């Protein structure tokens, strides 16, 4: 009766599909926000080891930096928490123009389990 529960462009549905195609995948999730942050806690960005991505963790401000880290994690580097904000010394390149701060947790989608 209702719409499908999972949209076609849903990041976690895409992550599952990518893995079934044999691609190496990492999942990034917003875990903390302060001030004005564009995406809510829990928002997902999924990335493969070639840098393909779906979803978002910000309005596009920090995705590039997250993707670079996530490509390593997709291939087996340890999970980590990344922080972005105006207080960050790289803020000029990848900070949030809205003045907020976010933390993003990135972990591998473990193909062995």
């Amino acid at each position, binding site marked *: 009766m209702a719409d499908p529960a*999972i949209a076609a462009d849903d990041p976690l549905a895409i992550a*599952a599909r990518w893995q079934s195609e044999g691609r190496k995948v990492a999942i990034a999730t917003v875990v903390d926000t302060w001030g004005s942050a564009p995406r809510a806690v829990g928002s997902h960005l999924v990335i493969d080891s070639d840098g393909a991505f779906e979803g978002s963790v910000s309005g596009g401000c920090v995705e590039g930096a997250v993707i670079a880290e996530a490509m390593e994690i997709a291939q087996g580097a*340890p999970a980590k928490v990344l922080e972005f904000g105006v207080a960050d010394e790289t803020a000029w390149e990848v900070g949030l123009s809205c003045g907020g701060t976010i933390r993003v947790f990135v972990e591998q989608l473990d193909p062995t389990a």
Partner: protein
Amino acid sequence: MKAEDLRAINAARAAREAVAYVVPLAGGPGRIVERGADDPLAEPLQALFATGKSRRLEGAAQDGGDLFARIYRPSPRLVIVGAVHAAQVLAPMAAACEFAVTIVDPREAFAAADRFAGVSIVAEWPDADVLALDAETAVATLSHDPKIDDPALQIALNAGCFYVGALGSRKTHAKRVERFVAAGFGEEAIGRIHAPIGLNIGSATPAEIAVSILAEIIEALRKGGR
């Protein structure tokens, strides 16, 4: 995240069931906790399930580190019973707020599709199969006819809908309460009905009534229902 956990999360979402994925932020395997499961984290998770908000749980890991609880709750549905004037305004407003909206009214003249472009309309009596309610569904009865509204409200209370609201004055509601008591519903269950429906903002038109109803539904969705 384990591949099997991702499959479990996606399966739960497809089945419109709420689950949490709990993962240590210092690294290490996460795990799935179903809503209502007997679990050491049941208490903090219950509060998160009620609002649908994901959150860091400080010091909750075995080693004293932080956990992150990602709450997956299905997108909300709104079932409007009574294809009345206020429903014509409420349906598109709720759709704009990302509710999947269904209107149920057995009176075919009311439920005519051209009055409700782009909305799912069911011209049948509201029984359990027609309504297909769950905890992630809000029900608003607007028909003003107890023959139509009462069964829908009773099914909604039994289904644990996160919001149950009924149009009608205090006097109308007092009579409804008498009927529901006679039908065996307890005080707690009847108390979950928002009646008169909607936040009290002095609404004067069908559109303003729709605003007050939708605001009350969103309050229940984001701050936890009764």
